[in-house]
């Protein structure tokens, strides 16, 4: 039979490099994301509206803070809120993919779970970039934000990269919870975290007890760090510890659920 030499040749095939990771896959994931209206609202529309409401149309926005003004602080805050919404909802899409049997389908392809997570992370970073860009663009065109040019770039990059913390959170929640209500839970959790990190209302307006509690919430450390280049002052180790601990928790949680998932399916 002619099949025999063909088989011998087929047995010599090589698995794809990098566990099946390729940029083309990320491109398709992004295209898919752009079709998802709910995600676009959470990641792009809401942050822009919030910024408009909280950050630009108040009487005190021109108040000086560090190297810029209060509008700049608000812009960074809302960009962070938008970016983490983007990465968390992207991460949580694994929940929908699991429910649809897509994760199982992927397991009969060469794609490794690591490569899959990397694809999810990169896709969420693309959306987060869009979110940061949209908020910063509004900040730029309305002409109320005052901040040195280099700080626009530096804070923007810090927010963007920092938002990966919540991609891990989204993956963890996505692997933990069923798909029906995962988006709502993520949205609620993010709003609470954002309030607790002072992204919507300055923490100084909280009671002392709440202020202490806020220091232990997941967005607090990241928020302080991304504002630091603008606000200045002393860099506190507590911020870095907060970020490191929550990152470790989310990554451990996501890895634990992923392992569990692979063993079960």
């Amino acid at each position, binding site marked *: 039979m002619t099949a025999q030499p063909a088989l011998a040749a087929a047995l010599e095939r090589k698995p794809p490099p990098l566990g099946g990771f390729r940029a083309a896959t990320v491109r398709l994931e992004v295209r*898919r994301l752009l079709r998802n209206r709910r995600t676009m609202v959470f990641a792009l529309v809401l942050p822009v509206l919030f910024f408009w409401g909280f950050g630009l149309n108040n009487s005190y926005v021109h108040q000086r803070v560090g190297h810029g003004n209060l509008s700049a602080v608000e812009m960074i805050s809302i960009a962070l809120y938008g970016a983490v919404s983007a990465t968390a909802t992207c991460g949580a899409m694994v929940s929908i993919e699991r429910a649809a*049997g897509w994760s199982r389908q992927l397991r*009969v392809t060469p794609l490794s779970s690591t490569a899959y997570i990397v694809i999810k992370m990169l896709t969420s970073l693309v959306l987060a970039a869009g979110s940061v860009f949209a908020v910063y663009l509004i900040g730029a065109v309305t002409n109320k934000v005052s901040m040195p040019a280099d700080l626009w770039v530096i804070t923007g990059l810090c927010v963007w990269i920092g938002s990966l913390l919540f991609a891990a959170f989204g993956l963890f929640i996505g692997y933990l919870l069923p798909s029906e209500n995962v988006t709502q839970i993520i949205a609620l959790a993010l709003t609470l975290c954002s309030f607790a990190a002072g992204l919507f209302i300055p923490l100084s307006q909280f009671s002392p007890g709440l202020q202490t509690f806020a220091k232990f919430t997941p967005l607090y450390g990241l928020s302080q760090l991304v504002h630091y280049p603008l606000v200045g002052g002393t860099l506190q180790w507590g911020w870095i510890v907060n970020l490191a601990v929550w990152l470790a928790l989310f990554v451990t949680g996501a890895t634990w659920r992923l392992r569990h998932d692979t063993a079960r399916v």
Partner: protein
Amino acid sequence: MTVRMARDGAEAAGVPGPRDGAPLPLAVDLRGVHKSFGPVQAVRGVALAIGSGEVMAFLGPNGAGKTSTIDMILGLSRPDAGAVEVYGMAPRQAVRKGLVSAVMQAGGLLKDLTVAETAQYTASLFAVSRPVGEVLERAGISAIGGRLVGKCSGGEQQRLRFAMALIPDPELLILDEPTQGMDVEGRRGFWKAIRDDAALGRTIVFATHYLEEADAYADRIVLISKGQIVADGTAAEVKGLASGRTIRATLPGADAAGLRAMPGVEGVEVRGDTVLIHSGDTDAVARWLLTQTPARDLEITSRGLEDAFIALTGDGAASPSGPSGPSGPARAAT
């Protein structure tokens, strides 16, 4: 017969090849495989060798262990005991090399991708892949490439799964209940595409509980029941394993236990008012039914694949038995 040829091919695969002296491995080699889920023993000691080029039907009732076995062949789960090899390597490695792919039972698609994007996505994961246009063409869905998967019918989605499975140009294609939920027309078209593909020398294993599909499209039928292989051979051979004939009669309130106790009776099945009795001595049963019970509309038929299926997998079926004796399931060619 094509079966024989395929089987001979499988055996030839075990002897050293002419090219480099290395033997070509079996497509699938399961040895003493066990798999339990908690207290449920899904697979209980399955040994199965599938040669290159075979078209094999994996037949059994729901819950017989078909999907559990297929999952192990695809590396989706590991056996508790025993060994699973695909082309002489670990299943996951065979998947990574694109040697084996599968059409899964249901799901496995994203509604917010189009048909063509789904195929492109799959293609982007393999080292080498066939052009997306070509596999869509082969699966008969090139006209709906731009349609969102969520807007496709069940049959179209199943064809898409088939197209995805063809992308790595696998040596072994596994289909788990591929035509479930498809109408007759869709089923026929689907099988034509599969048969055309098998003609190119691909090894095909499909699980089904549609007997007519196994009968019509497989060269070899492996019958599984309660986690064990109970028959293995061509459709004709498997049919032959069920000796005797079947009586069908209308008998409201049939005493199944009493019928089962009659000499020669191998299996009794009650479907509403209808009773089906498989027996080596149907004459005696018929005589008793007509004289001692209100049974009517008697039909006596010799057995088809369905009867073999019922006899070998039903409640009255003994554990593995067949021509090859107590050492294992019925093997037509060994």
